């Protein structure tokens, strides 16, 4: 096996690190948009099912799935998920995931903002804002090596 010179390795690593950063950042935006579409789509389905009802009537599960695969917003949302997963796999291929956790955590911020602006009956209050900050902080440090 040949090893690259130090110079090559440095240049490569920096360019690649920037590329993964941008890719993962885009993923968080696409992912958040997908969440909004999925929420709108499931609201259109209007199925108010609880876990207990599913356990008692498994048919509800099947009919819900049929509703899901015939809803346009859910379809687009799932295409976004798919694109997201591919981009993420590209960004993370053979690379250190831990440094990207703080960026991935941003998804919680985007989903909150997009919900408030695009969905009916959503609002932010003090507890929710602080809660999101805690979650973003928590997810961000998960990848630290100690």
């Amino acid at each position: 096996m040949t090893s690259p010179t130090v110079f090559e390795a440095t240049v490569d690593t920096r360019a690649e690190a920037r590329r993964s950063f941008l890719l993962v950042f885009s993923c968080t935006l696409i992912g958040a948009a997908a969440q909004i579409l999925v929420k709108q789509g499931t609201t259109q389905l209007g199925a108010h099912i609880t876990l207990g009802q599913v356990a008692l009537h498994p048919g509800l599960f099947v009919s819900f799935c049929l509703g899901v695969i015939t809803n346009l917003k859910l379809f687009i949302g799932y295409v976004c998920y798919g694109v997201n997963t591919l981009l993420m796999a590209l960004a993370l291929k053979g690379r250190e995931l831990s440094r990207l956790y703080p960026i991935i955590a941003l998804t919680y911020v985007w989903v909150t903002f997009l919900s408030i602006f695009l969905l009916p009956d959503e609002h932010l209050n003090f507890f929710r804002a602080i809660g999101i900050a805690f979650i973003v902080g928590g997810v961000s440090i998960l990848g630290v090596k100690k």
Partner: protein
Amino acid sequence: MKTPLSSIILVLVGSFIGSFGAVFLKLGAEHMKGSLARLFTNYWLAVGVVLYLLSSVFYMMGVSQGQLTVLYPMVSLGYIWAILWARIFFKEAFTIAKIGGLTLIIVGVALINLGNA
């Protein structure tokens, strides 16, 4: 309108099932070598994908009612399972950062539930 507990439970069930999906995808990735055709006979990956789809059905049932500003953050509790399974199945150590991170996540989720009034 307050987000119903039944929706929160469905989202949590979804993220629990999804955490097993991640385990199988990782097992699949470890068995991955050779051609693209092998990708389709990689049963670990297939099980992982099925579990992800199943988890997303529960997630969708959950978010069909209630507020996304309350329900989406609940997904972050999935990290508890992810870290636990990483310890059990892949012998990945618990670190101070993981324990600290999970603590912050749990406090954050508790605060959001407090704000769900």
